[in-house]
């Protein structure tokens, strides 16, 4: 994907996700049960995109969440970059096409992103039992939607070209002929 098209797609998807999370789901359900769709986009980027472009797009996705929050610029952008870095390393080891791998990836990514973001917002003083409970619930709900989200993103961002539908690990297996 070229950089301009990718950035535009991420910005549009980011705004749609912010709208769904804030205006739609935020008025219907408790914050614990609102999935972080932007985080699913970041996990997708970590598994399916190259490191420099993917990192930039993860940064942009975080920036959109920062701007819609309207408090500080940078916490979500930084946390998404950290999540991207960690999971792009793990992408060589995880077969994300399976439901369990997708769920666990997004679950732990959510915990990591929340931890980094909250520590930048308020310092470590706010990470108490209530905060942990909300983090775990949000991660769980986001993880449940991860397989659907990742599949949708693959279809939208990669099109119907089957050779590009696989994660980097899957491509690696096909090229070397052996599972890592």
């Amino acid at each position, binding site marked *: 994907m070229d950089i301009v098209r990718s950035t535009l797609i991420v910005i549009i998807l980011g705004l749609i996700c912010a709208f769904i*999370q804030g205006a739609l789901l*935020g008025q219907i359900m408790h914050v614990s049960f609102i999935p972080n769709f932007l985080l699913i986009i970041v996990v997708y980027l970590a598994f399916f995109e190259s490191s420099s472009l993917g*990192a930039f797009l993860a*940064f942009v996705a975080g920036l959109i969440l920062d*701007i819609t929050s*309207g408090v500080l*610029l*940078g916490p979500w952008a930084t946390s998404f970059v950290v999540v991207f870095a960690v999971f792009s390393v793990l992408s060589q080891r995880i077969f994300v096409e399976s439901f369990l791998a997708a769920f666990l990836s997004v679950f732990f990514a959510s915990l990591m992103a*929340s931890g980094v973001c909250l520590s930048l917002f308020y310092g470590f003083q706010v990470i108490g039992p209530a905060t942990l409970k909300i983090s775990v619930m949000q991660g769980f709900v986001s993880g449940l939607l991860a397989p659907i989200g990742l599949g949708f993103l693959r279809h939208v961002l990669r099109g119907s070209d089957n050779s590009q539908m696989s994660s980097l690990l899957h491509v690696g297996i096909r090229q070397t002929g052996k599972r890592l």
Partner: protein
Amino acid sequence: MLLFFVGLFLTAYSSRNPETTRIGSAIINQILFPFQTASTVVIRTTSHVWNGYIALIEVRKENRQLEREVSLLRSEVISLNEMQQENDELRQTLNMKEESALDGIVATVIGVDPSGWVQAISVDKGSMSGVRVGMAVTHAGGGVGQVTSVSLNSSRVLLLTDHGSGVDALIQRNRVRGVLGGRGGVDCELKFVEKEEDVIPGDVVVTSGLDMVYPKGVYIGKVKSVNQRTDDLFQRIVVEPAVDFSRLETVLIIIKEDL
């Protein structure tokens, strides 16, 4: 690595220059405003149809209870009217200037913070309606928060329960002062109250008016618990807000001309 440090730099910069975030937030909120308003209308209509016609659960029982409450409130109103009249006469006698009633803009809640970690709401009134950054926001039940960013047709309100919120408040009973801050959940905390001060659960907390944001005497909530740890200089006072923020539909933005 570079992006990580750029993110840290942005965080530090925007914490010292909050206008940076406000401008971007105002633009994004303006773009999302029509969709937020439309979705709010659909959600509220569906909710009203469901609650009003389909899910008539214990309506009759609730109706009887409400009738009893109304008759109690009626008698309270009558005695309060008596007190108000007496108050008016005393003020006239002493030639005191009356405080004017709160002047404000009614706004509808159209969204919440999408990240879920900032306790903030979006409302459907912006600079075109006279809203400015820093204005206090209340509800019929009590204080709600403060306007932190404004676009043409919508505004962002930081709730009292957010960690970044701070209101100068006092205990109505004995005028003990403190700063009310959020805890990131459903409760607030009254900070910087010394251990010698007399605070008990059930005490009413109101605004002091000294921070020049909220008018004096706005009801905030009640003291839920008091903890006097020996290693702290101050008491740990948890305050339960009067307003249920999860059910907010409309708010009043208090107009202040000198902002």
